[in-house]
């Protein structure tokens, strides 16, 4: 079975966010996840950073320091080629999980 823990889901959310929105800082990622999920997914905002750091070390995302619209220095992340591949795999494995859980719930 595919790797489907909480961490895996957070990775998927982050990767998907960066795929949809391009360059984004950590706060932006958190905001996007909240808005895009209709406030259904509430992550503890700090927990995004260990995930970002780990993904960066794995080479899925890259980063650079840049200025925000409000002239604040922030670290911006973007998807790399490896990250795009990872995203595809994560999406597929998530579909599997959903399918599996649904099938399980429907079983009576």
């Amino acid at each position, binding site marked *: 079975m595919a790797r489907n823990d909480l961490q895996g889901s957070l990775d998927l959310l982050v990767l998907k966010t960066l795929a949809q929105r391009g360059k984004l800082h950590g706060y932006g990622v958190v905001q996007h996840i909240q808005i895009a999920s209709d406030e259904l997914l509430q992550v503890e905002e700090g927990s995004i950073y*260990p995930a970002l750091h780990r993904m960066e070390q794995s080479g899925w995302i890259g980063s650079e320091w840049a200025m925000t619209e409000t002239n604040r220095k922030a670290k911006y992340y973007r998807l790399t080629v490896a990250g795009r591949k990872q995203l595809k795999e994560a999406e597929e494995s998530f579909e599997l999980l959903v399918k599996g859980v649904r099938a399980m719930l429907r079983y009576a």
Partner: protein
Amino acid sequence: MGLFRRIGNLFHRSRLASDMDAELEAHIALRTEDNIAGGMTPREARRDALVRFGNPAVMKERTAGADMALGIDGLWRDVRYAVRQLRRSPGFALTAIVTLTVAIGANAVVFSILNALVLKPLDLPGARRLYMIEQRGFPMNSYPDYLDLRQRNHSFEDIAVYIIGEAAMNTGSNPSHVWMYQASGNYFDVLGVQPYLGRFFHSSDEHGLDAVPYIVLSYDYWRTRFHSDAAVVGRTVELNRHSYSILGVAPPKFHGSELMFVPDFWVPVVDTPLIAMDDDLKSRGDRSLEMIGRLKPQVTAAQATGELNAIAAALQKTYPKDDDGLQFALVQPGLMGNMLGGPIRAFVSGLMLLAGLILLAACANLGSLFSARAADRAREIAMRVALGSTRARILRQILTEALVIALFGGTAGIAASSVLLRGLSVWQPMPNFPIRVQVNPDVGTYTVAVLLALMSGLLCGLAPIRQIFGTAPWEVVKTGAAVTRRKRLPGLRDVLLIVQVAVCAVLMTSSLVAVRGLERSMHSNFGFQPDRALLVDTELRMAGYEGDRVAAMQRRMLDTAATVPGVQSAGLISNIPLGLGFSETAIFADGATDFRASNAVAEPVQYSVSPGYFQSAGTTLLAGRDITWHDGNNAPAVAVVNRTFAQKLFGSVDKAIGKHFLHDSGKQRFEVVGVVEDGKYITLTEETKPAFFQPLAQSPTSSTWLVARTAGDPQNNAAALRAAIHGLDDGLLFTLTTWHESLNSALFAARAAAVSLGVLGLLGSVLAITGIFGMASYSVSKRFKEMGIRIALGADRIQVLRSALGGALRLLAIGSVAGLLLGMAATRVLAFIVYQATPLDPVVLAGTVMVMLLVGLVATWAPAQRALHIHPSRLLREDW
């Protein structure tokens, strides 16, 4: 990229931390701004931002944790932790590192020597196909035989010959003493070398036996003597007063076909009659050339040997007198065939084995050290396990410690060995022969040393693995020390310690045997008295003397030497006994007609001596008379023989006088006029050999040694004698030494053996001491409490000691006995190198036992003291 970034992170940990802080700060600020925009007061906004963010410390911790899970940072932390741990127990760390330094150093040195002399062929292109051609187990061949072999064989691409020789070189000012290869024209082509400057000589330069006035300089000689002057090619120099032009310079690292000889230049072998000593290229029976051939690619050594021996059979038929029993064999080149190669290969391989044993002993030691340490840390480890650390994590920590020690020890060992080897490479063990042991350690040596270090580190680190995995944390935490029930079966550690003690005893036995042999050979009967004697080595050809002038000059030298104050008598001999040169010849019974070698009655060593030699050398005349000036050119041929010769040919000393024997295919018939005592002639380890001495006048040679017997310390007369000889002809090159100095070359092998075994023995005993010490002190400290109780209950000192040290001493005894027996077996090999090496010598036996007792005493002294000074009352109160 990820990996590099991770490694980069290691060194930028602080930067990463500040990055994280900035990122966190930005996040809070952005959220606060949004909150304010949403209508909160600034204070509320910031508070909300912080709450939503969660605990920043946890976030940072988890970010760093993400790194550690990736491994590299964890390793680095382990290394730093290991270094810190080691620094906290310097005694342990130092012992372990020194042990490893000693073992790795010894192995690197011995391996380099093995690599240089045994494993690596000559440093030449395609050297694996180069073979030396030996004749009847002896690397010397005659020139006519060589020409026949070269012409008739189909196995070799080509065969070259060479002689090692000396000459006087005059480049304009004063003549100097030089060493050379007299080499056949194809020599450089067979070896496959290209000149550095100018050109080499080739086969096409040779025209029969006519002299060819060319020489090729070695790179080193060109550099030192001609200051790297490129214009030297074509210049004319004088060699033994004959004109030669310099043809070229050999490449830097090329020293010819012998590994231990460093020549100054090469000269065509056909010039031998012109410039060198009495080697005769025309005589088939005069064997003085070494032969080296390059096999054709598709031919095996066995096929080539077969073909050579077919040729040998044919030669035997054609020349029954000279080539009787001729037989060829191919051997590895570089060490004068098997003559030097055999003993050197055996000895160095033996040394390697011993060095390997030392490494084993060191590993055993380290293993014990590590297990003792693991046991001492049992409580700490148990605590860590109880707090949730995995065993794998702890093991990794301990292995890292072992690796750190291995790296330190290995590096120190390699550094020490390269210093030693550099010293060995420039060392000139023999005063009158340019021997060089080229042992520059190469990449291979270093690789082997590092691998050995890492491997022993890992092995030792793994030694306590069972201990760690078998530990039940609650037990340890409860009782204090690890309660591991000692099985009465000997454990791996006991076996290792026995091996180690045995190795030490083997080394001790063999080095004592070698030293005793050396001592005995210093005091054995050489058949001459080297005390109070000076030697003057001359080759009159080097100064241009030829024909009758040679004998006249020799007579003048003798007369002059005898008038030097302090000199009692003087005499000449063609080769100094136990020097490097000698000649053996077949002799036949009086009346013999069949002069094939198989019909010879003996093959004695042959010398030419002047009147006064025996008296000056201190050789006792047993019967008959000495050689006199009346035994001249036209007088009947006479000879003085040694006792063995007399007994072998004529039954006894007295019967020999007046009898005859034949030499040189019956062309010479000698009357025995005197008998002298036996002596050592070629090597110290030889069996008693027959020898005969002819009058110098009847068998002239330009190369002689003058022996001058002095009244007192010969050093006092050396200057006067030197001046007197110099006064006769200031262009004459000669070396003047005391006879004892000159004996160095004969004693060299035995000395080298004694020294190397002694050093290894010392290292071995150091390791044995630390090993026993480690075990004894460990056993004492583990049983402190038990012994305290025993003392409290009234045990006396002996009983305490027995229980504290009994185990260690028992192992010592077993190891020593095993080692002594093994050593006795091993020293049989030494008998080839060292005179009268026998392990069944009471001094050796007692010496070894004494040394081992001493080792035991030194090693157990401190632990015994500790055991004896236990205060039971204090001990029982304290928690150990």
